[in-house]
C-alpha cells in the first residue's frame, strides 16, 4: 500500500464525511464550512489524478469565490440561528431511502463495467500549458460562449437583486 493509496483513502473519508456533514448539520454556517472542506478533499483528488490546474482552480473558484458568496448571503440575512424547521420524519426517511436506492442501483449497474486502468505514470495533460492549448484551439467557441453566459448571469443577478422601483411597482 503506497503513499498514493493512503492519500486516496484519507481524502475519500474526508470528502464523504464532510459531505454528510453538509446535509446533517443544523447551522448553515457549519454546512458551508463542511462544503469547503469537501472541496479541498476533491482538490486533493485532482492532484492525485494529475490535474494540477483544476485543483488550483477548484480551490480558487469554489472555496474562494462561490462559498464566500454563500457565507455573505447567510450572514447578510442573519440565518445563522438554528431556527430552520425540519421536514417530517417520514419525508426525511423517504428522501434518504430514495437517495440510497439510487446509489444502490447505480453501483450495481456499474460494478461489472470494464474500464481501462488508471495510468500510473504521471502525464502532462493537467498542466496549464497543455490545457490552454486545447482550450484555445479545439474549444474556443464554447469558451467565447461562456463569456456571454457570464455577462448575462451578471446582468441577471443585478436585475433580480436590485430594489424594486416603488414608482413603477405593479
Amino acid at each position, binding site marked *: 500500500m503506497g503513499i498514493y493509496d493512503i492519500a486516496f483513502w484519507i481524502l475519500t473519508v474526508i470528502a464523504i464525511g464532510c459531505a454528510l456533514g453538509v446535509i446533517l448539520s443544523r447551522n448553515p454556517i457549519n454546512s458551508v464550512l463542511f462544503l469547503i472542506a469537501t472541496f479541498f478533499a476533491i482538490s486533493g483528488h485532482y492532484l492525485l489524478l494529475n490535474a494540477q490546474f483544476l485543483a488550483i482552480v477548484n480551490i480558487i473558484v469554489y472555496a474562494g469565490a462561490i462559498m464566500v458568496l*454563500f457565507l455573505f448571503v447567510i450572514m447578510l440575512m442573519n440565518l445563522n440561528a438554528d431556527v430552520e424547521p425540519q421536514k417530517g420524519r417520514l419525508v426525511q426517511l423517504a428522501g434518504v431511502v430514495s437517495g440510497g436506492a439510487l446509489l444502490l442501483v447505480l453501483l450495481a449497474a456499474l460494478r461489472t463495467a470494464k474500464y481501462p486502468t488508471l495510468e500510473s505514470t504521471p502525464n502532462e495533460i493537467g498542466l496549464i500549458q497543455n490545457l490552454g492549448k486545447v482550450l484555445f484551439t479545439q474549444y474556443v467557441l464554447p469558451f467565447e460562449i461562456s463569456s456571454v453566459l457570464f455577462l448575462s448571469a451578471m446582468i441577471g443577478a443585478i436585475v433580480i437583486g436590485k430594489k424594486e422601483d416603488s414608482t413603477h411597482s405593479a
Partner: protein
Amino acid sequence: MPILPLHYMFLSLTLFCIGIMGVLIRRNAIIIFMCVELMLNAVNLLMVAFSKMYVDAGAQVFVFFIMVVAAAEVAVGLAVIVMMYRKVHSVDVNILNRLKH
C-alpha cells in the same frame, strides 16, 4: 489493493447521492443550493478520473466549463434567494407553495 477507476466512480456516485439526499431532506433553500454544488463537484471528479483513464485533455476542459456554469448559476440563484428572503422573510422552501392553492 491498487486504486481502480471503479473506486473513483464509487466515490463520485456516493457524493452525488449525498447531494440528492440533501436536496430531498432539507428545507433551507441555501442548503439545497449547496447540495446542488456538491452534485456538480461529484460530476467534476468523475470527469477528471475519466480524463486520467483515457489520457484526454477534453474532459478537463469540460470540468472547466462546468465550473463556469456553476459560478453563473450561483450568482443568479443567490440573487433569487435574496429576493425571496426580502418578500417572505424566510428561506424555507415549504413556504413557496402558492401554485398549490
